[in-house]
């Protein structure tokens, strides 16, 4: 574990930043791990990277197999024409949402606590979108012609069929990916300049100066930077709502019982943010320990994201309740049976029971501040939530498709080895990118942290902060 010398012994805090932090200490704690010579890279990083890269290898083998043999290597069938790949697609894209919410929405709402985790969250968004975006392409029967979904001039004289939600997906995901990458990159520019300026060898200097786009730190540069950043934040914010709504349309536009529900878009968005914050916790809790970033990513951050997780989780559960109620209230046999089959069906009822445990019961301890302040508990709950949200998509995609209108065409679904290997493999892709990110790029936005530190030290704590500190110390919680 990278240690930072010359620092007083560390005490966990609930402040957004430790009071004793200075510009230099922020720069040091974030950039030191990046500047470390390759051979001094900590062992844990190598282990993690190796494991991730191995899984990436599994992913590549699966893709090779898929392209060679076809979709038949998966468990998909008639009637369950969509299986793991679509579940994983929705799951990954959902995870990305917390990143955008943190970086864009909370920026616009002027929530200073977002600062230390927004960079990592944005990176998570982009990597999750990469993982998600590959699924719909790979799960095509003929992935090599995926670009037929795009409107481009061609000699066939053909155009996409814009009534299809799958075509909306194409636009939703590509917009989301491009805006997220831009936003992320713009935010990185001043930090790249810092790294360039701190560089001790020519390669690093060359590498980071290329990335920093000639940043000179002038007031004019800052002014334009801030404007661009805010504009992009404003552009990203609606995406939080629109992208997953569009994904939800894939189901809501379909006329299957269990899919054809108007509640799908808002409930999908809530689910996405829910799963996203769980993932933020899963990534941030080990990261702050491993890189010694506890001063910058404090209990306050984890506490807040857990609260958001609880809130959105309860919205999702409300969605389940409404779905079941509407199925009954509609009086439609197909809907009623679908609800019955999801909850009590002999084949897949277990998935619903487990899902209720994960998404409803397991998050209830988060009402307690002590639980939210317990990193281990939050980490475990976040993992359970991630599983729960995967199961939710399993119920929506697979269980719905097994039993639709005509009992004569009902079927079943059993995932194959390749289904699992592709899912695990996508973790390989995600974590390979993640490990490269934390090793090569500043995982905390130093320029913004310095701004926060400046604000914190010059304008002092506000009244609310003092109240909170008092209350926390009474309970014996870190101040």
């Amino acid at each position, binding site marked *: 574990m990278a240690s930072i010398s010359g620092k007083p012994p560390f005490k966990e805090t609930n402040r957004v930043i430790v009071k004793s932090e200075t510009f230099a200490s922020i720069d040091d704690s974030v950039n030191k791990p990046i500047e470390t010579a390759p051979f001094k890279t900590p062992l844990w990083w190598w282990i993690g990277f190796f494991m991730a890269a191995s899984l990436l290898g599994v992913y590549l083998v699966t893709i090779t197999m898929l392209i060679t043999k*076809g*979709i*038949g290597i998966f468990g998909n069938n008639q009637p*369950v024409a969509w299986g793991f790949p679509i579940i994983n697609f929705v799951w990954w894209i959902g995870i990305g949402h917390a990143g955008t919410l943190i970086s864009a929405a909370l920026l616009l709402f002027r929530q200073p606590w977002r600062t230390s985790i927004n960079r990592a969250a944005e990176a998570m968004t982009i990597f999750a979108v990469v993982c998600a975006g590959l699924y719909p392409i790979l799960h095509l*029967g003929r992935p090599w012609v995926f670009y037929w979904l795009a409107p481009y001039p061609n000699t066939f004289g*053909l155009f996409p069929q814009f009534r299809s939600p799958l075509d909306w997906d194409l636009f939703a995901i590509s917009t989301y990916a491009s805006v997220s990458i831009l936003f992320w990159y713009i935010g990185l520019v001043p930090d790249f300049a810092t790294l360039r300026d701190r560089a001790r060898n020519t390669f690093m200097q060359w590498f980071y100066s290329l990335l920093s786009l000639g940043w000179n730190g002038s007031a004019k540069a800052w002014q334009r930077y801030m404007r661009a950043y805010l504009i992009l934040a404003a552009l990203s914010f609606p995406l939080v709502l629109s992208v997953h709504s569009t994904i939800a349309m894939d189901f809501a536009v379909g006329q299957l019982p269990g899919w054809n529900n108007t509640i799908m878009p808002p409930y999908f968005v809530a689910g996405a943010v829910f799963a996203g914050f769980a993932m933020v916790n899963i990534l941030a809790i080990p990261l702050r320990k491993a890189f010694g970033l506890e001063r910058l990513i404090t209990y306050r951050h984890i506490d807040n994201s857990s609260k958001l997780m609880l809130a959105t989780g309860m919205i999702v559960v409300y969605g389940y309740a409404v779905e079941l109620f509407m199925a009954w209230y509609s009086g439609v046999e197909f809907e009623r*049976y679908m609800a019955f089959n999801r909850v009590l069906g002999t084949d897949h009822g277990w998935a619903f029971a487990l899902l209720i445990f994960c998404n409803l019961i397991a998050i209830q301890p988060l009402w307690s501040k002590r639980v939210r302040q317990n990193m281990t508990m939050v980490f475990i709950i976040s993992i359970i939530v991630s599983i729960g949200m995967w199961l939710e998509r399993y119920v929506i995609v697979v269980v719905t498709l097994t039993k639709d209108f*005509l009992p004569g*065409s009902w079927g079943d679904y059993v995932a194959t080895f390749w289904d699992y290997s592709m899912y695990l493999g996508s973790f390989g892709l995600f974590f390979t990118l993640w490990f490269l990110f934390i090793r090569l790029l500043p995982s905390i936005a130093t320029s913004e942290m310095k701004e926060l530190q400046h604000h914190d030290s010059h304008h002092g704590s506000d009244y609310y902060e003092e109240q909170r500190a008092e209350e926390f110390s009474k309970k014996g919680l870190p101040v």
Partner: protein
Amino acid sequence: MSIDISKIRTTLASQQGKAYWRSLDELADTQEFRHFMAEEFPNQAAPLESSLNRRDFMKLLGASLALAGLTSCVRPVKISEKIVPYVKAPEQIIPGKPLFFATALTQGGYGVGLLAESHQGRPTKVEGNPDHPASLGATDATTQATVLSLYDPDRSQETLKQGQSQNWSDFVANLQGAFANLANGEGLYILTENVTSPTLAQQLNELATEFPATKWHQYDTMHADNAYRGAELAFGETAHTLYDFSKADVIVSLGADFLGEGPNKVRYSKDFARRRKVLSAEDEMNRLYLLETSPSITSPVADHKLSLNSAKIAAFASSLAKELGLGAAALDTEHEAFIAALVEDLKAHQGSSLIIAGEGQAPEVHALAHAMNAELGNVGSTVIYTEAVDANPMHHGDSIRGLVEAINAGSVQVLLMVGGNPVYNAPADLKFAEALANVPFSAHLSLYYDETSVLTTWHIPQTHYLETWSDARAFDGTVSISQPLIAPFYGGKSAHEFLAAVLGDAEASSYDIVRQYWKNQVSGNFDGFWQQVVYKGVLDGTAAPAKTLGLTEALPAIEASEAGMVLNFKFDPNIQDGQHANNGWLQEIPKPITKIVWDNGAYVSLKDAESLKLSNGDLIQLTADETTITAPVWVLPGQAEGAITLSLGFGRESAGKVGNGVGVNAYLLRQGTNLWNTPIEVKKVSGHHKLVTTQYHHDYEGTTERRHIVRHGTLEEFKAHPEHPEFVHPVEHPESDLYDVFEYDSYAWGMVIDMSVCTGCNACVTACQSENNIPIVGKHQVEVGREMHWIRVDTYYGGNPDNPEFYMQPINCMHCEQAPCEPVCPVGATVHDTEGLNVMVYNRCVGTRYCSNNCPYKVRRYNFLQFAELTTNATELSLAQNPDVTVRSRGVMEKCSYCVQRIQQAYISSENEGRSMVDGDVVTACQSACPMEAIVFGDINNPDSAVAKNKASKLNYALLEELNTRPRTTYLAKLTNPNSALAGEESGVHS
């Protein structure tokens, strides 16, 4: 390098159709050539190293020449015999336009007339010949699939002597050698299947003349031995019995699956269904009382049904005969009310009723049925006795028994077997295989190198019926001459050529033999006669003349038999007696009712399963006379208590790559003289065998019923509310739409499926498979739910699970006017045309499968893997493909197109003739095959079309109409015609 010229000549002499070779080296098969080939085509040459013969090698090489070198891609060039197209003269061959030729195949020896579709010399599809009395234009599932067998690479392709490759001339020489020491043919035995062919019969007679001591035995598994013996019991002489369902109002089947089994089933289906089709409340229906041991193809159209084992059916027959006033014992005490009502109904329909005994019933039951029909005055109207149609009527079971006895007595010197596979399917106690080993010289002419061929001294490959000239008599005696569509694809000899060789003319061709026979039969202008008969496929006026028979005085008594588990044998509805076991289409068709594929299960009743603690896939040991086999269990609603049914035809060892080792061989337990039922000991053993089905949910009760998918009622209910029968529209769904509905102002294609007559026989499924190049996927892929059939028959069970009613619902693409699949396709690969077809653009499909998810009928089929053969790995089977239909690649969605290629053909023809299409111009593959005429297709904009009239019926309803999809395929609610006197009786029919 030297070339052996004489070897070349021999090689060429042994060629049948092939006129291509690339060098003399190739013909001589020299070392140098082999070496050259190994260098040039290493992959193809590899099998050569592993001692494959030349012929196989040529086949492999054929692939590298893009099949151009294959013998029969083109119209046979060597053949100089003239064959006659059905519709158009041969000089009109236009690439892309198929020709149709009348021909015939035999089932159990009896001819069934066909029209075979030929594309540039390649037969790709068969249709029924509308002029043929056993077809009337329809076919069954098995017949449809015979096209695939023609190209089957596993077919026998060379003359073999104890497994060693030989020439035909070697065989002829050996045969003559074997004959040399037979005086008068003493010791010469011929075993054939059932023979009706006049030419073949003539040849056999010639043989008997030449060698007077020759013995001719027949063994055909499909031969109706019990009916034969029953007629002997009833009349003291043999009788050939025909039924006329067109005159029958009340039908009682004593265990007869007359719509699903027997050589005349297609004709019977046509006649039966035409008396059952109801469009308006004025129409009348026949009534069927069905007694059966195991659910069959006939079950779904029964009005009253009893599930009884054969002993109880016999007891029932006896009681029924008694109640009808015949001197029989009242053995059935359980169904007194049923019998009383039945008797009343029968007596009310004197002369228009019909009692049929199934082949699985004892001869005594057949005799009783004859007596009852006579009593009811049905003889001459619904029952017709004719002169024999078989060339040599005999009891086949006795015949083969006699043959084995002769072998065991050492009197058989030469045994010539023309077709058949007795080693596999003769009664097991005869131990035919062991006996065969004692025959000094045996030869077997057969389509496959099968279980029997392996054990004979000589095996001669036989020609497929589409490769040879022959003739056959239909079940009613009508003669048809069958013509070949293609030169023998894998070489081989026909039965005529084989017998000619026995008679001393080894070079005779079937064409000459058959033609010569008929030349001797007709006087006057023979060429004109020949032209006409071959063209039409039927020789009019040759039906067997009716015969008057007198019943013998005494009625045979039925003996009451004690209870005990009985094993009941049955032909598989698809592969029949096993002769089609290597046909992938037939193996993969879901069996009627159970929907099992690629297997045979032991059908066990619910009650027996309960007491024996059995569930699907459990293994049971079946022991009869110290022979034991192990079979997987399938618990089947409607199976009679105390009877286990196992289909024949499985467990083949030498069927070919497809059929070997599929299922269990039930013939092993088929012993003695009662070949259809045997007392059995049942023991559950450990282990499990997965029986794969295509439908998991059959229960009609509960959610299925509330979905109003199957709508059914009785004729009486319909007559009570002729304008608005409530059972057709249990819930009103007013049509409303936010948008304007598209006006279809030219043709508007639509289909109506009559559930009242659908039996689930699968003729439509196979016809569709053949017409539309639908690949098979194998057992495992079906297990995971990836079967590709474009039309399926959903089966639901309603009522009492011990004796349910079966609802058959064929489902193909509904061609919804507002198709849910269309708006969700991101690339517009599935779109609507102006005539209302939902068309699939394979080239545009990227394979998102969203269309399938959104299809409420789940009719779309997806190529999850490369199921169709690619050109790079194509076998000869790909030659059976219809060139009018695209072969779909992996990753592409497909579905029923309403046979759009046929619509286009009809469109082009009508445009050329300057007219618009009329009703009947377009007949879909499923429609033309359907023996029950349950499928009607046509232009719904034309009020005079049959489909428009069907749609106007008050019984017409759209499946899932509440979804507003406006499907073009609609259904006629299922009607039954139960006897009101039996209301409330437990008779397996919803009332």
